[in-house]
């Protein structure tokens, strides 16, 4: 199993999980637009299905919020 973090929360995944699988699982109830970065690097939407997650990856999923 892989240990990684999603928005700083520890999660475990089976090896070879793709990013879009993770997102489908974790964001199923969310109706907000979002974007993803892995280890501080932006991942465009078109690559979600091509990216396999790795041990220790730090995944950020961000959505609109208030700002000044």
């Amino acid at each position, binding site marked *: 199993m892989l240990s990684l973090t999603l928005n700083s929360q520890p999660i475990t995944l089976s090896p070879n999980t793709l990013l879009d699988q993770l997102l489908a699982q974790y964001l199923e109830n969310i109706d907000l*637009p979002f*974007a993803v970065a892995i280890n501080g690097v*932006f991942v465009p939407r078109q690559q979600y299905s091509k990216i396999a997650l790795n041990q220790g990856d730090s995944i950020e999923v*961000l*959505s609109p*919020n*208030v*700002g*000044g």
Partner: protein
Amino acid sequence: MSTWQLADQVLTSRLLIGTALYPSLDIMQQSIQASGAEVVTVSLRRQSTAGQSFWNELKALNRRILPNTAGCYSAKEAITTAQMAREVFGTHWIKLEVIGDDYTLQPDPFGLVEAASTLIKEGFEVFPYCTDDLVLCQRLVEVGCRILMPWGAPIGTGKGLINPYALKTLRARFPELTLIVDAGLGAPSHAAQALELGFDGVLLNTAIAQAHNPVQMATGFKYAVQAGRAGFEAGIMPERDLAQPSTPVLGKPFWLAN
């Protein structure tokens, strides 16, 4: 009311407004309406219930969105945040903040130029939140910025324009650029003053959101930018050191004649 050009948009209002710090989303929505602003700033954060409600309100407001990179302390962070914002909001506009100091929240001139350079090459329309440093501004222009957003004062201080001399210098030296005072304004008169100096607009958040009555304060700032712009266009009288009567001296009765 006349229009102006901000990047690829034709706008009427010269007020850009933030979406943070309001007592409630309802008051935010009313304040933005009252302000007349056509551009609103937003951020990217992890999902939350509040974020969901905000998003619904934001869509309903139907304003032009200017995402920021608030909270970034390096060019790399700001670039990643900008790239994510472009995808989320479907806009190549980015309010570029690279903070150089925790206490003053002032822009980092070095990181800012680096991030702006990269983002412009990637096709962004960069709105850099910068200091009033002329040389920094020249560098930003050299890497392709067409818009500059120097601070009036540190974010959230409400001090107004702490260095009008520097701001006047920027306006004089960059007659063709779009210049917007971003941050530090506290009162409508500060916004009017910025416009009177020839700045194209102002961007603010705290002064409205944290007023006792944000909706009314939004109205105040709406009028302030109209007041200042009209003053600038109409040509403000030069300051004089000697008093000059307005009522005519000709035709005065004899008892006023000496």
